[in-house]
Structure formats: structure tokens, C-alpha cells
């Protein structure tokens, strides 16, 4: 460690630190344009000048490059420093009078205008782009060319770079926003679509999945991270003070023994491209409910502002209900939540824009607490409700006012007429569907799938959160379309169910387990492979098969499959079934 004094304050920093870093440790602000945490000190902009006091007088140094030394005394605010820094900034201002970063700095230093002739360049020649390209990306696609006043940054020979991978790092670091990738390479940069924003916005390779994600920690998308793909970059490391970034981490599968399981695998939104006549995926402004949800959300890509794809505020918006629900060609069931979220959308559009809102509905199912009231309120807000399922969405105009609009065609079943409503935006309220992997999940937990493929509860009224297997519970939309309050309630109930088992510390097993009469079992072992629960074992020394009662679920398959009849099912004996048969068939044959 070395200790030095900056503006009269003492500070200790590690060997090899720069004066700039030492100052930053003291929260002493030194302006800079070319410094970047992830890059080596460079000293190009010279804005970070400080005065070093030595025995034989003092001199100026760029703090970003000058090493901190024992006993060093530094002054960052001396008259000499301010004067020189002002001149530096004036020179920059003369070169690039329009660059924001420079203008801000000038303002900060109280510079009204530059005294030098203006050149109106856009690049401040800080070299961040050149350095990040070489130092971090190990590419070096661009560099300084020419000297003095002709100095500029370009790919070699001012030709498109063959090695540039269009990672866009240069763009990101440029303080003057003057990098234009299309001048460097023919490659098109591929933005990474944000899953959470339904692809409406892009995200970096290291990111937090969404606001309030739990846990709220960033993840690295290894398919797009330059570090993980090429071994270069790793810039993020330099910014993480906690030093929490570990590029060597591997995916790992954790096996956890548990006593009970709550299946809450949720739902998937109906894929509206299946119904081509609504033009989803064909017209820019036909949105799925989830896409609109993001657009209208404060944390969404537009910050909650409702725009059409081309950035206009819509004059009219149509909301189409029951897309894929209550439809014999798709899902027969009612998805239960669409009516209410459609009303919410209508409300939001009204609140945030001046657009007219048209709801195309079969009927409004406002069944929940306070829902009907909300429906009334939305009616009061002047939202139009047209009773009739939309027939199609088209961009073929029939009248001048339909020009350039999307036209929703529907039969108004109240007026008994077919209506064409021109709108700027169409929202499709799609059905809730079982997760794509519901079948596999069902198999894993031996859950039956019921209507529409949602998991079946043990009893619709008496055991709505229990599954057919003890210790496995259902919560949320995986069991059927559900809104948030219901999901929360069911989740809580499932948790309570799980707790009650943990609390007991023991489980009740079926009273109908199989049993093998050891005086009769010949040890043929045919039953063993028949048992899906590995509940039957071969006793080598007795030479017979034995049932482990705790594992037996009482399906009785081994009993039916026992050739010698040595296996039988307690309380579900063949004799019992025989008497049932006899009972049923009393007097069957005259």
C-alpha cells in the first residue's frame, strides 16, 4: 500500500493504482472523457490534469495515468489546474462544439464559449473505441489514422473491416455517440431480444431477467456473451466491485430430497398465429395481450408510453376477446381472466392516450370481487363494447378513412349488422393454455391431465389443491386458468397442505397394498419387473419375492400378473371382486 495526500486529505491505495483512482476513493471528482474502468489508462483527453507538488516545485500530470506514490501530494482544484483544464476543454469544444459530453463538461467548468476557431468534428479522439476493440475484444478492427489535424478513426484503408464482429462495444463506450457500425463493417449487429419484454426490446448479455426478479441477481447469457464465446471482453468484471462474476461457472443439476412437492408450472399464452385471419405476426400493430402488457407497463420498453410500431400514439385501439378460448376449433373452455385484463387494457389506453377503444366480446364475465364495478367504470370511460366475436383483421381499405388503418370486421350481434372498425392497434386477448411441457411434467409427477390438458385435482370440490398422489399439490394456472387472487389463494392452500405433511413427519399409506404369500410364492420373479415402484424384491435366501409395503401404491398389477396366485391385494381380493361380479349378474342367465 502507498499513502498520499490529495487536496489535503490522506488516502491509502494499493500499489499500481493511479492518482485518479486514489481521488475517486476520496470521492474527489476529476472530470475525464477517455478513461474507462475496463481499459488501460491512456491519457488522451487530458481533461483529468492534476498538479503534483514536488520538492523542486510543482507540475501537471494526467491523473488517469500518473501512478500514486508514497507521500505524494496532489492538488486537483488549484488555479493552475482549473486554467489548464479549461483550455483543454475549450480546445475540445472547438473541435466538437456539438458533442453533448463536451458541452456538459464545458458547462461544468463554467465555459460559455471557446476562444478557438470551431471545426465541428464529432469525434473527440478519446480512443475508447479503438482500445476496447483491441484490448477487450482482441480484434482491433479500427485504429487512428493520419496525424495532427487530420487524425481520425477508421478501419484500415478506410475499407469495411473483415475482422469486425459487429459486437457494438465501440458504440457502447463512445462518449460522443459518433461510432457508426455501418461504416466499419457490412455485418449487421444482432440485438438480443428481451424475453421478458416479449422481444419488444433488447437486452445485454449480462442482465437481470426482469425487475423484481427473485433472486434479483444478473445472469450471463452464455450464447451471446463474447467472453464465454471467444474468451475476449470480460469488461463487466472491471465494474463489479463485489468481484462476483465467475466466467468458469458451469450449469449444474441439483438433486434435492423432499417430502412433498407443489406443482405450479403455470400456463402458456395461446399462439395467435394459429388463427391467420387476425393477422397476428403479419401486421405490425396486431399485438398479443402479453406484448401490450409490456408496452403499457412502466418498466416496459416504452416506459409505459403506448405507441404503435412506428411510434405514433394510436387514435383508435381494438381489443379482441376470446382468441382461442370458447372456440370449438381451439379451446372449448373459457380462459377466465381475459375479460378482466381486456378491460384493464381498455382503461390504460384511455388513461394514457386519447384513442377510441373498441372491445369485441362474446359476453363479459366480470365474476370476481370488485370486477363488475370495474366493468361499470370502464363503460363510464367511454370505451366502446361491440358484442360479437371479430371475424377478421384486414389492411385492405374500402373507404378513405380506412386508408392506412387496420380494419376489424365483426358482426354486432346486438344491432344485427356487420361492422368494419378502422383502428391503429389491435390487441388479441389470447387463451390460457397448459404449459408446452405439461405432459412430461404430468408423467414425472404422475398427474393426470384433464380438460384442455390442465392437471387434474384429486377432487373438484373437496380436494382442489391435492393431486392424485399423496404429497404432490397443485397451485395456479397449471391446474386451470386462474387470475392472480385465485392463484395466490391456491398457492397458500398448497403450501399449507405441504406443511401439514411436514408437520406430521409420517404419511398414511394405502390400506390396499399387495402381499405375497411366502408359503405359495415360487420365486418366479415375474412380478418384480411389473412393479412401477420397485416395491417388490427377490429374497435370495428364501427364494421368494417380497413386497415392501411402504413403497407399494396398491395398483394390483402384480396381483393380476402373478401366475401362481401367491400375490394378493389386501382389502381388494379376487374373491371380493368375484362376489361383485356375481352380485351384478344375479339372474343374468335364466
Amino acid at each position, binding site marked *: 500500500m502507498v499513502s498520499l495526500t490529495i487536496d489535503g486529505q490522506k488516502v491509502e491505495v494499493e500499489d499500481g493504482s493511479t492518482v485518479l483512482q486514489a481521488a475517486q476513493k476520496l470521492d474527489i471528482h476529476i472530470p475525464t472523457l477517455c478513461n474507462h474502468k475496463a481499459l488501460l489508462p491512456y491519457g488522451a483527453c487530458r481533461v483529468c490534469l492534476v498538479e503534483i507538488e514536488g520538492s523542486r516545485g510543482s507540475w501537471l500530470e494526467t491523473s488517469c495515468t500518473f501512478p500514486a506514490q508514497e507521500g505524494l501530494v496532489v492538488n486537483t482544484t488549484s488555479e493552475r489546474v482549473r486554467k489548464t483544464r479549461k483550455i483543454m476543454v475549450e480546445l475540445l469544444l472547438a473541435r466538437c462544439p456539438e458533442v453533448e459530453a463536451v458541452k456538459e463538461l464545458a458547462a461544468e467548468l463554467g465555459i460559455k464559449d471557446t476562444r478557438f476557431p470551431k471545426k465541428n468534428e464529432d469525434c473527440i479522439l478519446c480512443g475508447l473505441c479503438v482500445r476496447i476493440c483491441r484490448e477487450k475484444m482482441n480484434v482491433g478492427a479500427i485504429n487512428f489514422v493520419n496525424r495532427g489535424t487530420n487524425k481520425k478513426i477508421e478501419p484500415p484503408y478506410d475499407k469495411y473491416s473483415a475482422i469486425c464482429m459487429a459486437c457494438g462495444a465501440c458504440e457502447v463506450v463512445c462518449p460522443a455517440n459518433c461510432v457508426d457500425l455501418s461504416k466499419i463493417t457490412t455485418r449487421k449487429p444482432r440485438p438480443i431480444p428481451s424475453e421478458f419484454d416479449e422481444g419488444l426490446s433488447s437486452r445485454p448479455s449480462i442482465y437481470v431477467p426482469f425487475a423484481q426478479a427473485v433472486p434479483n441477481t444478473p445472469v450471463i447469457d452464455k450464447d451471446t456473451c463474447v467472453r464465454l464465446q471467444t474468451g475476449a471482453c470480460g469488461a463487466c468484471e472491471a465494474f463489479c466491485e463485489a468481484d462476483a462474476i465467475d466466467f468458469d461457472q458451469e450449469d449444474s443439476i441439483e438433486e434435492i430430497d423432499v417430502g412433498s412437492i407443489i406443482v405450479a408450472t403455470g400456463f402458456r399464452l395461446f399462439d395467435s398465429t394459429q388463427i391467420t385471419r387476425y393477422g397476428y405476426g403479419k401486421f405490425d400493430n396486431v399485438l398479443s395481450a402479453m406484448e401490450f402488457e409490456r408496452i403499457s407497463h412502466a418498466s416496459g420498453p416504452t416506459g409505459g408510453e403506448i405507441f404503435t410500431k412506428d411510434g405514433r400514439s394510436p387514435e383508435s385501439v381494438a381489443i379482441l376477446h376470446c382468441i382461442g378460448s370458447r372456440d370449438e376449433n381451439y379451446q372449448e373452455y373459457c380462459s377466465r381472466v381475459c375479460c378482466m385484463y381486456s378491460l384493464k387494457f381498455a382503461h390504460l389506453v384511455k388513461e394514457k392516450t386519447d384513442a377510441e377503444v373498441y372491445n369485441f366480446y362474446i359476453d363479459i364475465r366480470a365474476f370476481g370481487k370488485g370486477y363488475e364495478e370495474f366493468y361499470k367504470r370502464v363503460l363510464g370511460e367511454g370505451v366502446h363494447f361491440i358484442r360479437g366475436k371479430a371475424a377478421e383483421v384486414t389492411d385492405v381499405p374500402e373507404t378513405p378513412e380506412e386508408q392506412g388503418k387496420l380494419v376489424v370486421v365483426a358482426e354486432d350481434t346486438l344491432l344485427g349488422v356487420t361492422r368494419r372498425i378502422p383502428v391503429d392497434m389491435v390487441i388479441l386477448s389470447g387463451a390460457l393454455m397448459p404449459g408446452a411441457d405439461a405432459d412430461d411434467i404430468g408423467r414425472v409427477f404422475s398427474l393426470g391431465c384433464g380438460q384442455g390438458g390442465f392437471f387434474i385435482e384429486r377432487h373438484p370440490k373437496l380436494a382442489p389443491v391435492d393431486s392424485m398422489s399423496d404429497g404432490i399439490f397443485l397451485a395456479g394456472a397449471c391446474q386451470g386458468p386462474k387470475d392472480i387472487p385465485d392463484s395466490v389463494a391456491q398457492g397458500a392452500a398448497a403450501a399449507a397442505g405441504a406443511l401439514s405433511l411436514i408437520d406430521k413427519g409420517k404419511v398414511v399409506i394405502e390400506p390396499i397394498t399387495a402381499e405375497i*404369500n411366502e*408359503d*405359495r*410364492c*415360487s*420365486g*418366479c*420373479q*415375474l412380478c*418384480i*419387473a*411389473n412393479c412401477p415402484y420397485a416395491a417388490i424384491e427377490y429374497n435370495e435366501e428364501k*427364494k421368494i419375492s417380497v413386497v415392501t409395503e411402504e413403497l407399494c401404491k396398491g395398483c394390483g*398389477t402384480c396381483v*393380476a*400378473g*402373478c*401366475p*401362481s*396366485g*401367491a400375490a*394378493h391385494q389386501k382389502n381388494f381380493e*379376487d374373491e371380493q371382486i368375484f362376489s361383485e361380479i356375481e352380485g351384478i349378474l344375479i339372474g343374468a342367465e335364466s
Partner: protein
Amino acid sequence: MAKPKVAFYWCASCGGCEETVVDLAEDILKVVDAVDIALWPVAIDTKLKNVQAWEPGEVTVAFINGAIRTSEQFEWVKLLREKCPLVIAFGSCAHIGGIPGLANDTTRDEIFANKYHRSPTVVNTDQITPQEQTTVDSYDLKLPKFWKDVKTLDQVIDVDYYLPGCPPPPDLIAAAVGAILEGKLPAKGAVLAPEKALCDTCPRNDTKPDELTITEFKRVATSTPDPEKCFLADGFLCMGPATRSGCGERCINGNMPCRGCFGPTPDAIDPGLKILAAVASRGEADNEDDAKTLADSLVDPVGTLYRFGLPASMLKRSVATERAQP
């Protein structure tokens, strides 16, 4: 005390059961020391008279072999039942019907037609069929009535014990005789053989894989069984798992799968159905079509699953009416 008297009688059988008693010949003197034979099966006296003359209980036990196919056999076993405190069904035929029981898969008319009219070597222009009563130049001749079906002994009279096997092995016979002499018989209705299925004593049981699966049922016509391997594991249907042990695994030693002559284990109500359920469960078929193919590879289910026990089976016999015509 006088030696107990024993009666032997036979019905529709091949004589193998007598042969197996002849095999006792080696111990013949012992047997003769122990019991008096009041009636030897073949020695049915001309008329029922002298048996009818027996004091009830005078003859301790009647060993009856063969299935019941004629009115005459029926009369005889009824009489023996009256006279003897103990009646023992001797051998597969009396016990469960035996091979002659396969006749329950056809009809009396078919049997006559094939034997006397359709046979490639029979010349029978007048379409003669043997008659119960005929007169040949004034001599009237009788034949007993040939029944429509084959019955097990206990389907016509009350039976006390059963000695299984085709034929019953001498050691079991000796044991049974011993038990009678010492009065150490089990509860009435018992089968005088071990209760466990053949796998219990089968030398090949250890070769069974953990997860036995059957991809198709092989036929010995077109493949030869592995001399060491469990027949099921090798793909040949074996009745062993549903059949009583006690036979000495002699067929297995001859490298042929068990065909069930010892009859069902005590808990297998219908051994054919039980083995069917067992082997089908182990079939390698995950869709209806494969399952059908597997099932079809088991040719002649009745003749295979009920080789010895058709008359004793739940359905007793076949009735052609609904059979799909090929």
C-alpha cells in the same frame, strides 16, 4: 391287523398311470407287503356284482385314473365312491382332464366323422358309424355311450385327494400310500404334491433376468431352446410359473418347457388365464398393434394353455358357434 385293501380303477386314460405303478415294481414287494389289492383297474369283474358285494369301508381307498368319457365309467366310479371311504383322483386325467380332455375343444360328431368317414385310409362306403346297439346276424352287441364331453373325476363324484402328474411320479405315489397307511393325510380335497409352482425347484430359475421381457413367443418347430436358460426368458411359453412342482422337472431336463400336467397351484383358479396374464404383462409392446402381434405369436392358445386342464378350466370346453371362420 389286516392289511388295508386298495382298489385301482381306470377310465379314459392311456395306461401310463398303470405303467408308473409298474415302475414301483422295484419296490413291488414292499407295496404288496403293505396293502392288499382288492381290485386292479383292468380287473373289472364281468359285472358290478362282486364290488357291489363289498362291505362299505372294507376297501380303504380307491385310486382312480383317467378322465370320464362313457356312461360305463361313470357307473363304476359312482359305485367305488359308495364303497370306499377314500377316493383319490390319480394322474392328470382324473385330476384335471389330461390330454384326452383336449377333446373338449371339439365335438363327438367331429370325432366320429374324422375317425370313420374322413380318414384318408378308411373305406366306408355305407357311411357306417359304430352304434351303441347293433345286431350282427342275430347276435346283439352293445357299446357303451360315448359322452359329448370329457369330465374330470370330481365333476362326477366327490373326490377326497388328488395325485397329480402325467403320470404321477413314483415318489409321490409312495408318499401318498405312506400317508394313507400312517393316517397322516392332509385336509380333504388336498392335492398330494407341493403347493409352490415349478419355478421353486426349476434348475433354470436362477437364469431369469431382472427385467424379463418377451418380444415374441417362439415355437420349438422353428427354434431350439437354450439348454440352460429359463424358457420364458428364452421366449418359449412355459407353464411352470402357474403349475405345481413335484414332477422332478423331467420335461425341463429334456429341454422342453412345462405344459402344466401337474395342474394349477392352490391359488391359481384357472392356470391358463393366470399364465396368460403373467407373460402378457412382460410382453414388449407399447401400442395396440405390437400387443396384437405379440399375442398372435402365441399360436393355439387353448391347446397350449390348457394342454392338460381343459375340462377343469373355468370355461370347461369350447363352443364353436362364435368362432371366426378362417
